[in-house]
């Protein structure tokens, strides 16, 4: 048995889309359960009054990363058949800056704006509308932005390849960093709550 199933032709496009729906249902469920449809909770991350975004995001990344690493290690998953998207340093750095400003301004990210709108929040609908406008704007400006969009390509590399170290070293580093941030987040929460701040 070799994974991923789809890349190895074990099932077709129709089954793939059905699976996409199931994956989405579960993703939306966990986002809502975690409170990520609530813009105040998300925005609280940037004022250190609510650490939910950091905790959810990094525990998700570490879970999936450790899963990929170990499934590959025991030979259950063929990582070479999962294409790592190409890195483009400048557009991804600048895109991140624009995105981060939009995030604290809107209080939701693209995925969580769908959760927010689906759970009856008007601000969620406003972010969804804004996202569509932004995507349209990018398309209209694409002739101008193309140079930046395609600048500084590094290719389909991973951090271990780029740094010339074994994957396990980076996996360990990311895990340790996440645990460090969780510990720091808990300490900050405790201090803010003791100081008579909001819970």
């Amino acid at each position: 048995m070799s994974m991923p199933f789809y890349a190895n032709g074990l099932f077709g496009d129709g089954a793939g889309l059905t699976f996409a729906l199931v994956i989405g249902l579960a993703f939306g469920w966990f986002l809502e359960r975690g409170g990520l449809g609530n813009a105040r909770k998300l925005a609280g991350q940037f004022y250190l009054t609510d650490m939910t975004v950091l905790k959810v995001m990094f525990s998700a990344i570490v879970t999936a990363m450790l899963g990929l690493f170990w499934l590959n290690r025991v030979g259950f998953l063929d990582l070479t058949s999962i294409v790592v998207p190409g890195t483009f340093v400048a557009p991804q750095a600048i895109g991140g800056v624009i995105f981060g400003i939009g995030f604290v301004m809107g209080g939701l990210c693209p995925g969580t704006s769908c959760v927010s709108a689906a759970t009856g929040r008007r601000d969620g609908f406003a972010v969804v509308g804004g996202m569509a406008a932004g995507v349209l704007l990018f398309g209209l400006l694409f002739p101008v932005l193309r140079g930046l969009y395609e600048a500084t390509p590094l290719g389909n590399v991973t951090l271990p390849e780029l740094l010339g170290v074994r994957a396990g070293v980076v996996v360990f580093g990311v895990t340790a960093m996440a645990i460090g941030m969780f510990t720091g987040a808990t300490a900050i929460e405790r201090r803010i709550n003791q100081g008579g701040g909001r819970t």
Partner: protein
Amino acid sequence: MTAAVEGISRPAAGSGRPAAPYMNPYLAGVGIGGILLLAFVVMGRGLGASGAFSTVVSVAVSDFAPAAASSNEAFARYLGDGTTSPFANWILVEIVGVILGALTSARLAGRFHLTTERGPRAGVRARLAFAFAGGTLMGLGARLARGCTSGLALTGGAMLMPGAWIFIATAFAAGFAASSLFRRQWL
């Protein structure tokens, strides 16, 4: 002042049932990470969100101005080669699932309310204007970076993709740096 309480968890209107508390964030994170891993294992690809917006907008542009859409790579790549529907797309179908999953979860937990989440000092109109403007910036930023929190940060982050970690670092740094400008919206 009703503004102070709006947006805070409270009993569902008329039901008399208090909204259930949110799940432990680490548990929610492990759940999302498990779903992401399942997508990798079964499909060889991760999660996404901004791609769904790109598909819908590209199809809309194509309906209004077919020639302009097909000659612009930013739209054309979401329209496909004409042999299949642009809507038969992994990320778009996944986002339909996200909407249905979130709706179901909120209904079952007594958390579905028609409301506007905002800080006690923020007006509804201002909050909605900032939400729209923030969404516009995120749409631009996500397209420039080739992904958003789901498709780039979570998916690429778990794959140890350098660009994903660059995006995570600059997005959080910019968010913290700009937070004082939007304090009135939230605190």
